[in-house]
């Protein structure tokens, strides 16, 4: 069992000696996952809110589909995005395969149903009469949704936390679409897989620790925002 403790110590040394490669990987991971989360929030929150407040045929079916999407296996998302971005694929002209942009697209597709589904249920928790009251104050549909979102911002923030958590820990899609190319598309998760397979357990543990710390910091920040709002009430 020595190699675990040993690996752990080496990992701490790597981190605190400021290993440039680890930090570059961490920065890329953070940037890709944050960008994908942000895009998914921009698209998913309005989309989910709209689905929640509007009446239309097959609404329940659509919600069921979105909920199913929450369990979308990242490797499947990655595979589909890769096929689209591949040189011979319909979006091949973009040359986004094996680039951070491609990884953002893949992660966006994974996060979108999560953020959308959680937004639907958050918005459905708003009393329909409250929504109607806002409409009667002279709000357009989008204005009314905005007013309601402000009321449930804490729940929406929880959706953001859930979405980011899923993305930063995700390995399948970025591996397929990014290709784990050193200095280009290597992410914390793909690097961990690679170092483990190569037997560099100290490096793997170090990267794993960075990943955990990163997730913790981002979630801590979001949670502080959320809880401060709770306490401010």
């Amino acid at each position, binding site marked *: 069992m020595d190699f675990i403790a040993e690996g752990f110590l080496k990992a701490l040394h790597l981190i605190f000696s400021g290993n440039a490669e680890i930090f570059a990987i961490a920065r890329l991971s953070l940037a890709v996952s944050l960008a994908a989360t942000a895009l998914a929030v921009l698209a998913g929150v309005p989309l989910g809110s709209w689905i929640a407040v509007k009446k239309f045929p097959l609404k329940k079916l659509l919600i069921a589909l979105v909920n199913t999407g929450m369990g979308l296996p990242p490797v499947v998302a990655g595979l589909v995005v890769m096929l689209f971005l591949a040189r011979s694929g319909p979006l091949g002209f973009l040359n986004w395969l094996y680039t951070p942009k491609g990884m953002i697209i893949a992660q966006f597709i994974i996060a979108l149903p999560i953020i959308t589904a959680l937004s639907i249920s958050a918005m459905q928790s708003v*009393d329909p*009469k409250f929504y*109607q*009251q806002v409409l*009667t*104050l002279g*709000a357009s549909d989008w*204005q009314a949704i905005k007013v309601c979102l402000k*009321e449930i911002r804490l729940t929406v923030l929880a959706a953001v936390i859930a979405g980011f958590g899923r993305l930063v820990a995700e390995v399948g899609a970025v591996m397929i679409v990014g290709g784990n190319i050193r200095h280009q598309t290597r992410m914390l998760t793909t690097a961990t897989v690679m170092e483990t397979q190569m037997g560099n357990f100290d490096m793997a543990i170090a990267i794993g620790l960075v990943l955990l710390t990163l997730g913790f910091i981002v979630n801590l920040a979001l949670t502080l925002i959320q809880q401060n709002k709770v306490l401010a*009430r």
Partner: protein
Amino acid sequence: MIKLNGLRLSVGTFNLAVDSLKIRAGEVFAIIGPNGAGKTTLLNALALLNAPSAGTLEIMGRNALAPANKLFLRRAMSVVFSQPYLTNDTVYDNVALPLKLRGQKDAAAVDEALELFKISHLKDRNAKTLSQGESHRAVLARAFVTKPRLVLLDEPFAALDERVKAAVSRDLRRVLKTSGAAVVFVTQDQGGALTLCDTLGVLVNGRILQQGEPQDIFTRPVSAEVADFVGVETILPGKVDAKQDNLCSVEAGGHTLMVVSDCEAGDSVYVCIRPEDVSVSLSPDAGGRRNNFKSKVVSVAPWGLEYKVELNCGFALRAAVTKQLVDGLGLKEGREVYASFKATALHLIKRIL
């Protein structure tokens, strides 16, 4: 202001069918009716929240059912629900919200609205920390900040206790008088309706059974359902035997009642007797009242500031009397008294079937 024709609207198994309704600018129109009569459904239709399946609705000369007119009309009206729905912001921000949604900023208008409903001192408080009465005041201030041409009120004070309700509705009445807005409000409280409205509609089972001036509806209900709802407590089926000038003699409840009415001899009718029109005395002298019956007291019960006496004079008759009278006559169960009422105080409803 509002013109409505042949409106049909279904919510679940409930069907609203209002054939015609007209409300003039500046008119205060009350919709009264029992629980589940469709009052709120009708109000929501006027507020453009429920889309009717048939009919026409015109508000301020525009087709209110055209989606393109929706936002314009909503911005010309205000709606107040029975529950005060406020956002998690200050009272000031809540009252300013309708202006903000219209892309306007008008601090003077907000201050004026706060002042109208006497909540200026609360403007920096979070709206979620207000008492029930204060919340209603905030909601009303928000409704009037835009100087609406049409105000829809859905049982605005149903959730308030009597004392607070009296104070808030006094302020509302004052504002309504000066605002010049047309008002449609829904209530179960007939007394409250009477103090506020110019005209009245009685909605039962999704249909407006009668509309007009309150006095007309209360004294001359067109059907037994309306009579029952507006507080006519004694309704007897009967038949007009004979008519001389305006005076009908009506066979009802085992007696012949004299009633002034335009019904004709041979008509099947309901006789409506309001409790406040029945006099109770110990002497057989009716003092010129044409109807006078020996009765037995069945029960005496307090009713608001008065007492309600249930009598048996061959049919069940209810009278509203003062406490002095109950004490003076020693009214109690089994007591023999005379019940009398004027021929002009009664009202006949012609039975269609």
